[in-house]
């Protein structure tokens, strides 16, 4: 024990340690404040918060859990990308291989259940924010950022659903994307689409409407798989990350987690 303590103290006195953590031991208020201020990640927090705001009973830590699950998805998703090819020939076999060839493999499970859990926690987070009236001024804008994050969370899940390329995936996405056909003006079965004509040639048809743009084809096929893969692994996560940064920043700037006046 004494040895460990010595080792710890030595580590903290080294130049390397002090170059990384630019504050002294966190046994006083000043250094504890510095611990947050000098760390880019912890700096998403303010230095001090209302006691009521950090009670588990108040926030249920739901926003934090949602963010944690997002990080889990990033980490496990990255590992899955090492094995997975977004092509019709390989996608399904890659997933089966992950299941059968990788000993103790739980990455796919972590990724799928984490995604389910994230959808649920983001709803519960919204419920909490509503029930504490935390969308009221000055937090209206952050509520809206939250709504966008909610939509992005669902889209992340939806694009990911296709990637295993099994019956479940293909038909869920077929059903889910059929509605795009009916978009007013932009879908070939939607209202107004038949009005968009040049002489006899209709401008919106099954080969260029909103659903075609989403699926890169008339059916859920190779093009859709690639498109969903790119959106799932790059497009949506990048936008979501930016919005989360805005979201957390605004939590701080709007006066920290809400509390009674």
């Amino acid at each position, binding site marked *: 024990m004494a040895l460990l303590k010595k080792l710890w103290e030595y580590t903290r006195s080294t130049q390397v340690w002090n170059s990384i953590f630019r504050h002294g031991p966190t046994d006083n208020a000043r250094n504890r404040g510095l611990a947050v201020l000098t760390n880019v990640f912890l700096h998403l927090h303010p230095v001090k*918060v209302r006691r009521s705001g950090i009670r588990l009973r108040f926030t249920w830590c739901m926003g934090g859990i949602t963010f944690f699950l997002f990080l889990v998805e990033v980490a496990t998703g990255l590992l899955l990308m090492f094995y997975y090819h977004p092509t019709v020939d390989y996608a399904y076999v890659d997933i089966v291989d992950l299941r059968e060839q990788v000993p103790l493999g739980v990455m796919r499970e972590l990724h799928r259940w984490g995604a389910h859990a994230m959808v649920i926690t983001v709803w519960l987070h919204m419920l909490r924010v509503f029930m504490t009236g935390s969308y009221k001024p000055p937090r209206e804008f952050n509520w809206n950022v939250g709504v966008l994050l909610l939509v992005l969370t669902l889209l992340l899940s939806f694009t990911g659903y296709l990637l295993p390329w099994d019956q479940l995936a293909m038909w869920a996405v077929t059903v889910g994307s059929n509605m*795009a056909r009916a978009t007013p003006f932009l879908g070939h079965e939607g209202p107004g689409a038949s009005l968009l004509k040049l002489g006899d040639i209709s401008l919106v048809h099954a080969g260029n409407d909103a659903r075609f743009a989403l699926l890169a084809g008339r059916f859920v096929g190779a093009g859709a798989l690639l498109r969903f893969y790119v959106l799932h692994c790059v497009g949506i996560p990048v936008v979501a990350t930016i919005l989360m940064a805005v979201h957390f920043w605004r939590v701080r700037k709007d006066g920290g987690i809400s509390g009674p006046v």
Partner: protein
Amino acid sequence: MSAVDSIKHVVNWLSEPSRFFVITVAAFFVALFPGEMGPGWLRRLTRPVLAIYRPRVAAAMFAVIAVLFGFACLDPNFRSIVGKPDNVPIAGMIFLVGFFVWFAVQQGRRNDALKDAGQPIVEKRETGDGKVLVWPDLVYIEFICLILWCIFLVAWSIFLKAPIEEPANPSKTPNPSKAPWYFLGLQEMLVYYDPWIAGVLLPGLIIVGLCAIPYIDKNPKGSGYYTFRERKPEIAIFLFGFVVLWVWLIVIGTFFRGPNQNFFGPFEYWDAHKLVPLINIDLSQIIWVKLFGVALPKNPLVRECFGLLLVLAYFVALPPLLAKTWLKSYYEKLGPARFHIMVFLMLTMIALPIKMMLRWTLNMHYLVTMPEFFFNI
């Protein structure tokens, strides 16, 4: 037939959609407003329900429901649907949503009671003279939360394998074909409205409506603490949308919609050959053909005049009427623009359960159907 079988029969009978929906909505309002709604006898009748906001009673109820759920899992039909890997989290979600809705309302009611007793509410008392340092107080909570979740996720992943079905096959449509579970509420709306309304317009309005909440709700009270009394209407509307129109519809879509999108009770075998006669009928048919005994008029405006009047009355005549009567105080507080946006969003929201009930009880297909103009409601 054994006792268990007859219970299962009763449950199946009760889960016929119109019955199940009425029960759900009644339970929702009774649980939210025990002893506060309707005539005197109803208030007296529902007052004992207040007990559910005592933690012990609630815990006992949760335990009973969990045990019943466990028993239900002994049934092969029930188990085969609930036990699908992708459906397990949804079953969990029912309990989580139930718990957290209860928890939020319960904390609100407790704060209300504290205020009545002239004491500071919980959030005030906790905050006391001010703030605490993020390091260590908050960072530690986050850290513990993170560890627990890691353990939970890994355990879940070890015990429940992620599903993988047969390879994708464009020429073999599974029956039933379902959207991913979080979109099943939207898929359910497709049964009652045309795709451009159910799949594009209404989802868009859900997002717009959520975004509009902070700008419509001008009630200055209840910001930053749990309360029920100070925000009853807002809480009731939001919870109705979230619990009944979103979560409940997902549950319906997941557990009760089987082959050919037919309804099945929880203990019913998902028989792909179950025959359900399609006898949906339009309002214009009912009025012209059945009531007046004449053929449908050719002119669509004449043909649909009754439905059109109804829809116009609902969306155009009702709002100003509400502004003068029932919702007068809101009209005065919010002003015309906010008020009309709020009423439009609410009427649209309520239109969904109205249409669902019309379909289930009267087989109503469309109130207005003018395929000539892509206008079917």
